[in-house]
């Protein structure tokens, strides 16, 4: 079987309630849905066997966006919706089949940076529970 590899994009990231979702994709230079799994210590028992420690996975949606300083900017969206729990849909590539959806907690992001520079802002939004894999429409 030949190896398969895809580039990220063109895709999309929409965040917001149904009917008023906001498209982030056009401003993003980076976007990732990242798991972080932690394991508790294994427990040795009298019989000599080992009880595996509990494992837990949390997720975050992160990326980097181009700042634009307009009143409808994504920096502004993050400020206006700070600490709100909003649904998202992440499509890594529209030429692929997979999408990921879930709910994230929006946090405010950096505005500004170096003078005479096209500044970017990094964001990291906590995913509540787990993302749900889906198929691109």
């Amino acid at each position, binding site marked *: 079987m030949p190896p398969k590899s895809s580039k990220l*994009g*063109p895709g999309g990231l929409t965040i917001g309630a149904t009917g008023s979702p906001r498209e982030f994709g*056009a*401003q*993003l*230079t980076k976007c990732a849905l990242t798991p972080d799994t932690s394991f508790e210590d294994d427990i040795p028992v009298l019989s000599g066997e080992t009880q595996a420690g509990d494992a837990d996975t949390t997720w975050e949606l992160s990326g980097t966006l*181009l700042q634009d300083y307009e009143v409808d900017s994504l920096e502004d969206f993050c400020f206006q919706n700070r600490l709100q729990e909003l649904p998202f849909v992440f499509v890594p590539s529209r030429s692929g089949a997979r999408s990921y959806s879930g709910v994230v907690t929006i946090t405010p992001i950096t505005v500004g940076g170096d003078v*005479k520079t*096209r500044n970017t802002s990094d964001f990291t939004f906590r995913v509540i529970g787990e993302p749900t894999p889906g198929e691109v429409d």
Partner: protein
Amino acid sequence: MSAPRVERALEIVEEIRASLEEAGLSDVLVTLDGSKIAAAARLSAGGAIHIRPPSLKFPTHSHTFATWTIVIVYGTPTEQVASWTRLDEIIAAIAPDLDVTVAQPSSWEGKPPPPAYELTFTD
């Protein structure tokens, strides 16, 4: 056919000409044609500015950032102060409006190579 960088280059030419005229330096040649630079850069002329094709970055699928380098050329190495003075006058006239981030001493092709400055800015 769309050639947005060429269209932008022609706009930059006009912007530079306006800045030069405002500074009383309208005898400086501004061109995309490098073959015209040497003649216009002589001490007996006013100086020359060459707009080079920009380097391009595509940080997203919908954005393109163009980094422009324009070269100001004037005089001869044997008349360093006169050459530098004119180059500095031209830089002072055009750099603020272009939002220049770097101006680097350089030289143009020739024997002897005329003094020059390379100015860089990003759209």
